[in-house]
């Protein structure tokens, strides 16, 4: 709880002064808000004065009341305006800080998360804090100042009547607090029941095609219906356990009951002569208004809770440790890449890489080969620093990657992966990503190199077309734009996933041509899937269970007759298999029985 508060106050620091001013204005406005009521009561005193009516005083009091209303309104708008504007600026500030933090997190952090979740924190959670910043403080101020001011005045008028007036309030608030007691656990249960509905709705929609084609619509529907019933009955139990005390407190706090109490008590005192009837007026006016601000505060509990939880998530993201930046950056000497006794584990328990020693000489192509789970993708992902090694080190030009400032590293390494990432921006801005200052001629040269220039010129606005709006690319075309980007970046080292070429069966050859252009004369690390593609590599590294099983050229590995040779033979067998008479079938499979 205290940690939560501290986190909140850190978040709010940039607008603390403005919030202070707003609270002060709100306090004055709350006092001014009491003035009109006092004025009406005082007007009564003037009008009922036995010595005759003082006209001047009557008008003064009337206009004072009107002035009080105006002052209240002005200050109220002022205070609200300040907090809302402060909230608006704070949102930008927090979002910028979040974006900045995101840009410094290890890339691996993102693979464990869904972009929707991050968007939720950045956009929805920051928005959800609105109530906390813009309203809660002000409501709290009013909830304190209005009753205190009113009670002070009422006590000055008549202390017995004051006690009578607050009697139903005390009872009502006690009942109210009682209903709030189990709130926290109930709300957790509520969220859980909601979560179940959401999950079953998602399952319902996602699975519907399966379910329908297998004639089991009822099944998924039943799960959803169960979740809905579960929620319905939970809500009913919760509500019915609460409805009596809740109703009692609401009725006790209602203006009607307060009014009745004041009038009954007042009538007793007036008829027994112990109270001047005029003195009853302030109680009918102010007594009824005592609870409204307190109730407003309590109605906002849900928003406040949402805002608090949102603030917690925002803080958590802001405090996620960033990828360490070297204190004393070193400059690499050349582009030789060395993996030195590299060990790596995603979760700290299961090692994915178990001691890899590997050197990539400048200007050579190295292919990583191995079954899925052998660690080849993980090994390649260490080079662009998606993750940092658990043990050992990866060096570029003799410098540990962790001692290189990120921009130095990325000036030397580019990658081309299977899922293309184009921004919703102009085509030329996408190609220019690494070098925003590149001139149009250079952009065009890169596009030509990637065999995509002709396609781009056919777009409605050519290079100025916006991706996703008037530039709609097929998988292979998008892939070639991303290759053009890497071409323009012109880094000496390229990390490449060979699967890239399968992005679009229709334009495989064009992507291949682009890759050929990209890798010319570069140091290349390629994750290989089709052995034929990389048979000509300078070195083939065969990974097995996180270790290097063997390495060498295609010919030497075949001669060694080890794991690679076995894989090659299996590959050859697949490649040379002529299509059988039965569709998509392999000879042995044809003999297999069908399931009845």
């Amino acid at each position, binding site marked *: 709880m205290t940690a939560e508060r501290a986190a909140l106050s850190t978040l709010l620091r940039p607008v603390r002064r403005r919030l202070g001013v707003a609270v002060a204005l709100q306090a004055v406005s709350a006092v001014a808000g009491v003035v009109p009521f006092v004025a009406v009561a005082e007007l009564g005193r003037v009008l009922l004065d036995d010595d005759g009516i003082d006209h001047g005083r009557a008008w003064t009091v009337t206009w004072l009341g009107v002035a009080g209303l105006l002052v209240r*309104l002005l200050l109220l708008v002022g205070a609200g305006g300040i907090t809302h504007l402060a909230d608006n600026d704070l949102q930008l500030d927090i979002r910028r800080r979040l974006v900045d933090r995101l840009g410094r997190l290890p890339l691996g952090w993102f693979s464990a998360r869904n972009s929707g979740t991050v968007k939720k924190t950045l956009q929805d959670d920051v928005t959800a804090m609105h109530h906390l910043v813009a309203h809660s403080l002000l409501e709290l101020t009013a909830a304190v100042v209005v009753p205190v001011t009113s009670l002070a005045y009422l006590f000055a008028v008549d202390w017995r009547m004051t006690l009578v007036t607050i009697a139903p309030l005390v009872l009502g608030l006690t009942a109210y607090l009682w209903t709030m007691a189990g709130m926290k656990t109930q709300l957790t249960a509520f969220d859980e029941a909601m979560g179940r509905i959401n999950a079953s709705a998602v399952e319902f929609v996602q699975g519907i095609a399966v379910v329908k084609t297998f004639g089991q619509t009822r099944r998924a529907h039943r799960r959803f219906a169960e979740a809905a019933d579960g929620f319905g009955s939970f809500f009913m139990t919760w509500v019915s356990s609460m409805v009596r005390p809740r109703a009692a407190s609401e009725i006790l706090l209602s203006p009607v009951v307060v009014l009745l109490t004041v009038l009954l008590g007042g009538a007793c005192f007036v008829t027994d002569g112990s109270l001047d009837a005029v003195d009853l007026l302030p109680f009918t006016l102010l007594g009824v208004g005592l609870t409204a601000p307190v109730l407003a505060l309590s109605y906002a509990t849900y928003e406040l809770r949402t805002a608090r939880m949102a603030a917690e998530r925002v803080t958590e993201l802001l405090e996620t440790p960033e990828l360490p930046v070297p204190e004393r950056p070193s400059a690499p000497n050349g582009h030789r890449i060395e993996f030195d006794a590299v060990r790596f584990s995603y979760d700290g328990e299961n090692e994915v890489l178990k001691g890899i020693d590997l050197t990539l000489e400048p200007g050579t192509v190295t292919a990583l080969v191995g079954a899925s789970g052998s660690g080849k993708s993980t090994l390649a992902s260490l080079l*662009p620093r998606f993750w940092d090694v658990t043990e050992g080190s990866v060096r570029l030009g003799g410098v540990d990657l962790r001692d290189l400032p990120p921009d130095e590293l990325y000036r030397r390494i580019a990658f081309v992966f299977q899922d293309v990432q184009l921004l919703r921006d102009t085509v030329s801005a996408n190609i220019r990503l690494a070098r925003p200052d590149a001139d149009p001629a250079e952009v065009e040269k890169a596009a030509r190199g990637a065999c995509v220039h002709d396609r781009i010129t056919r777009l409605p606005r050519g290079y100025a077309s916006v991706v996703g709006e008037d530039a709609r690319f097929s998988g292979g075309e998008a892939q070639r734009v991303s290759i053009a980007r890497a071409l323009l970046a012109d880094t000496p080292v390229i990390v490449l996933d060979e699967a890239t070429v399968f992005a679009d069966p229709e334009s495989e050859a064009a992507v291949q041509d682009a890759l050929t252009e990209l890798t010319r004369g570069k140091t290349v690390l390629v994750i290989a899937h089709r052995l034929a593609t990389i048979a000509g590599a300078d070195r083939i590294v065969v990974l097995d269970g996180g270790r290097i099983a063997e390495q060498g050229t295609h010919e030497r590995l075949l001669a060694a007759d080890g794991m690679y040779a076995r894989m090659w033979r299996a590959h050859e067998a697949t490649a040379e298999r002529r299509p059988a008479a039965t569709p*998509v079938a392999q000879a042995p499979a044809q003999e297999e029985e069908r399931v009845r």
Partner: protein
Amino acid sequence: MIRQLFAVVGPDQRPVLRRMLIALCAAAVLQGVAFALLVPVLRELLGDDPDRVWPWLWTLVGASVAYGIAHYASLLTGYQAGATLSRSLHHRIGDHVSGLPLGWFGPEQVGKLGQLTTQNVMDIMGVPAHLLRPLITGFLTPGTVVALMFVFDWRLALAAVLTVPFIVLVYRWSANLARKADEVRDEARSEAANRIIEFVQHQPVLRVFGRGPAGHRALGAALENQRDLGRKVLVTGVPGIVGFTLVIQAAFTTVTVVGTYLALGGELQVAKLLALLVLAARFVEPMSESATLGSSLRMARNALEKVEELLKVPALPEPAEPASPRDSGIELDGVGFGYDGRPVLSDVSFTVPPRTMTALVGPSGSGKTTITRLIARFWDVDAGAVRVGGADVRDLTTEDLMSRISMVFQDVYLFEGTIEDNIRVGRPDATAAEVREAARLAHVDEIAARLPQGWDTKVGEGGTALSGGERQRVSIARALLKDSDIVLLDEATAALDPENEHAVQAALAALTADRTLLVIAHRMRTVMAADQIVVLDGGRIAERGTHDELVALDGRYAAFWSERSRATGWRLTGGGNRPDASGSPESGPPESGDPAGRPDPLTAPIR
């Protein structure tokens, strides 16, 4: 809005809602009566004989008790209505959605329905308890008070009534301002949200190409725009808020000033004036409160509209007199189809004779997937007909049609549960032995052997993630267990690693043997093996025939074939050697070994 609410909840829930509305109105009017009784009470107390107050006070006690009862009843029915509302809404949504055509269930619907069944239903549940009450109280109570004021002093009552049109006008005006402001803000918000998602999803590229934290210009601009618009909305919104409060205060001021004037002139009893002033001061509150409900009202209305809209989506019509297919042949006859008026297929005709294989080939967007979906009746055609075994699919019951078709698509959905549960979906009454046999044929037993808890391993949402190839094997096992005559297959474009590739091919071989097969083909080997190849382009059939016929034709298919063949010879070489890109059809058929489809840290860093 009340009408919408009644429409959405369905007939069963209407009586509860009606009871609640009556209780609410009664409570609001009784509250007004209790307030108005203040006038005679104060008049007597301030008058010459305070003891004459008691009859009035007892009346007040009676009104208060009645109010208490009505209020309690409205609370109780309100919460009840909320709870039963959630249940009936969920069931209505569930029932309706399960009858919708499969085509409706796009990926965007997943998020929407999740939102609809939680947030939006919540918003609607709150309507009786949290929205109708303040609204009804906000208008009925002052209304009652003003009406009763006429009994005590018509001049002040008239002064109060005269202010009403202004209040209404200004209320409308400020509500309109607020709505416009919200629209502007929402737009800026969704633009920024999209940029955030882009920033997160493209983090590797942004990072590696040197665009660090400060680098994504578009995101920075979107965030700033959101702030600026937010500020503008606040500034333009102020007159609305001030205006409404001001006009209500003006109403109070008018009554006070007129009253003071009358009292000073001796035309109005002072006690009466004071009582009326107390009333005027107090009934201002509920009205200004109802002004702050504007945004919740819009939210609830929005939610109601969404539910209404969903319930209006027409369900797939079922035939009155179902036909029955005579065999497993498929026929498309002059089929035309489009999404939202954008034509996707036009005049597509071909037949797939029973127990033969037809391959669909064509660039992305040419309509391949749409054809398979029309056969499974995801949608109904706009023109022509789709026939299965000679019967129009629209004349078959959904159950009958579905029992004849197995679909193996690229995106395979796994339910929460064990692998065995997931296979059994294919035929719930299958014996354990049959399930195991299907699993064996689809090479799912190998997956089970690898997993820590074997067959009992939980998969699907929140369970162990299976790779793309493994999921596809499970879906093939389902289809094997189902054992239908027709198989619609979308071959994986995504790369599979060699061992998965092998297993999937073997599983498919078991599934497709001796069935009517329509396949969206990506592998050349599959295409070559087909009895018939249909080449699609822009929603029309460009060419049709066997592989040899089409190659001889030297048209689109031949061009496609030579391009694919060129791709197979490609090599990535080091040491300055240039890749050999001169592969030709003669150099052997294209291979199909495809790499990993498993989401790994490199190829699919962010979803």
